[in-house]
């Protein structure tokens, strides 16, 4: 019985997968088309009517989407050098490394801090206000301090950038870890207690697995924040190889070649999406395989 039933089920599953994949791709194309239409439509209307509010629309303030894409395949400078896309891919890879390290540092620190805060109430009362206030200090003010401090320790400049990225990363993870660890099901907790489970095993076998969905939603926020942190951190660190360096440079020549800056922003956005998707994939693997979801 089982073997006979399995085959059509597998087929059906495959068909469903193909259908959903097609639907997703279709949706993606549709969304992109609508966004493109909005941009070009807005542009066309504002130029035609000569509207100047909220800003004057022309090829400097809103370059054509196809001009931005075309800029990716042109050399930013005549003659020597790679096309912009190749240069930007190198820059994106450079920034991605900084952001990834910053993300790993921030997520690890954030998680451990969250666990510590949830385990020791006193620590939570004493420390949490400072954790919160750390995020009200703008990253722009923190970045130069980190660079100067770590620079005096002769640490590689990119590592300072990673630390700046981790500064933006740890906070959501700490807060959500704390929230997740505190939201364990009371009945499960009582069950564990009735088995005389120790503090460590309650944490390890019950609280942390239960907090995983919370932690992962924080990681999604942090993944994109780590890229922002890395880009901002590159400026005070004298790093020109990354996206931050390209942004400063293209900002300077914006009136001449606005497409270059837009193209750079596009790459930064794609990097953010890549980080986000990576976290989602890890989440699917980790959370879906958790015992409560397998059963």
């Amino acid at each position, binding site marked *: 019985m089982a073997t006979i039933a399995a085959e059509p089920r597998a087929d059906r599953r495959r068909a469903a997968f193909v259908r959903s994949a097609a639907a997703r791709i279709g949706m993606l194309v549709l969304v992109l088309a609508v966004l493109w239409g909005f941009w070009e439509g807005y542009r066309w209307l504002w130029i035609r009517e000569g509207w100047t509010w909220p800003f*004057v629309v*022309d090829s*400097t303030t809103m370059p054509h989407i196809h001009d931005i894409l075309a800029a990716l395949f042109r050399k*930013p*400078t*005549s*003659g*020597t*050098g*790679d096309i*912009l896309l190749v*240069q930007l891919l190198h820059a994106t890879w450079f920034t991605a490394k900084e952001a990834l*390290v910053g993300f*790993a*540092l921030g*997520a*690890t620190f954030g*998680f451990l801090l969250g666990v510590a805060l949830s385990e020791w109430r006193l620590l939570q009362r004493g420390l949490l206000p400072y954790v919160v206030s750390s995020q009200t200090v703008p990253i*722009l003010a923190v*970045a*130069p301090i980190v660079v*100067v401090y770590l*620079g*005096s*320790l*002769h*640490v*590689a400049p*990119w*590592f300072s950038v*990673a630390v700046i990225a981790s500064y933006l990363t740890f906070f959501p993870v700490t807060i959500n870890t704390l929230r997740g660890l505190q939201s364990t099901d009371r009945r499960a907790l009582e069950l564990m207690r009735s088995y005389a489970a120790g503090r460590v095993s309650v944490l390890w*076998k019950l609280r*942390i*697995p239960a907090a*995983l969905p919370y932690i992962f939603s924080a990681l999604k926020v942090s993944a994109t924040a780590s890229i922002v942190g890395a880009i901002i951190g590159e*400026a*005070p660190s*004298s790093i*020109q190889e990354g996206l931050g*360096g*390209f942004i*400063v*440079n*293209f*900002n*300077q*020549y*914006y*009136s*001449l*070649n606005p497409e*270059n800056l837009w193209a750079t922003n596009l790459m930064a956005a794609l990097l953010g999406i890549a980080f986000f998707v990576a976290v989602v994939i*890890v989440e699917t*693997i*980790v959370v879906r*395989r*958790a*015992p409560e*979801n*397998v059963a």
Partner: protein
Amino acid sequence: MKGRYWVVASLALMAALAAVVVGAATSAGASTKAHKLTKVTLQLKWVTQAQFAGYYAAKAKGYYKAQGMDVTIKPGGPSIIPEQVVAGGQAQFGIDWLSSLMTSRDQGVDIVNIAQVFNKSGLTLISWKNTGLDRVSKLRNKKVANWLGGNEFEVFAALAKFGMDPLHNKGVKIVKEPFSMDFFLKRQVDAASAMTYNELAQVLEAKNPKTGKLYTLKNLNVIPMQKVGTSMLEDGIFTQGSWIKDKSHQALAKKFVAASLKGWIYCRDHQSACVKMVLANGPALPRGHQRWMMNEINALIWPAKLGVGVMDPTAYARSAKIVKTYGKLKKLPGHEAYRTDIARAAQAILKKQQLDITGKNWHKASVKVTPGGK
């Protein structure tokens, strides 16, 4: 049960990654290769561009190496203050405008100018031809843009010379100038500050939307601060005051300045080669724009009456007076803010190599403007 292993595995992975990275980062910083070369860091005022071509040339041509140095050139940016980088010991040498050195010193930062590379000011005020604003005196009650933050002193002194009070926005309206020249092209101000080597070219590299052709100098009034008589000295090499007291550091500084000035001499005689060296360090830079910049930068250095690198005391005194007034300094910067012995020793090294340190016969080339600076 499986779920827990994943948690453990991912946590362990994160921790391991973090540990590896910390290790790598610190060891990369610590492993200063113990060759005979002395490690030296130079902090620039701004991002890589032809404004700093001489230093890139000195590195690329091996002039620093020949003097026993391995020089790291750190580009600047919007959030980098070279004075603080040098005072904090992150770099031995820095490049910045003399005015900003004076301001920092007034605030107690221990730095001293050891070579004044630019001997003319590149700052101008520009306006559109049809406005008729071709003299500073005509800017009364007009909107004048400047980047501010220490870059405004020359312009303020020029306006004050004709009875306006820019510090209190009386008789003239000062507005903050952004990094890009778009606002000027859109005619949002009457006059804008423009460096001959950068912003002026940005305007010329833009197309007039009405004619579809590039703007030319005929479309503009250009008022150089050099002509108004309120020019100040700009890019110079400085170092930490306490650091340079040491005899061995003085010897190092002499060699560093000699190699740097040799780089500038090379760029005077090989403009296009130097543009290539700059582009090698900033591959996304617009090439035509850099070519223009290289030529205009050379015009700020050459000819050098006193020989390149030696401070001109009259220009220094004029700069000091202007900064005192408009930078609201506590006291007038005196001669203790600079020393010429290092630059003179550097010149002696260069003379021994039969190099021309005055560039008497140098003439500005005519560089064709390219659309978009490309």
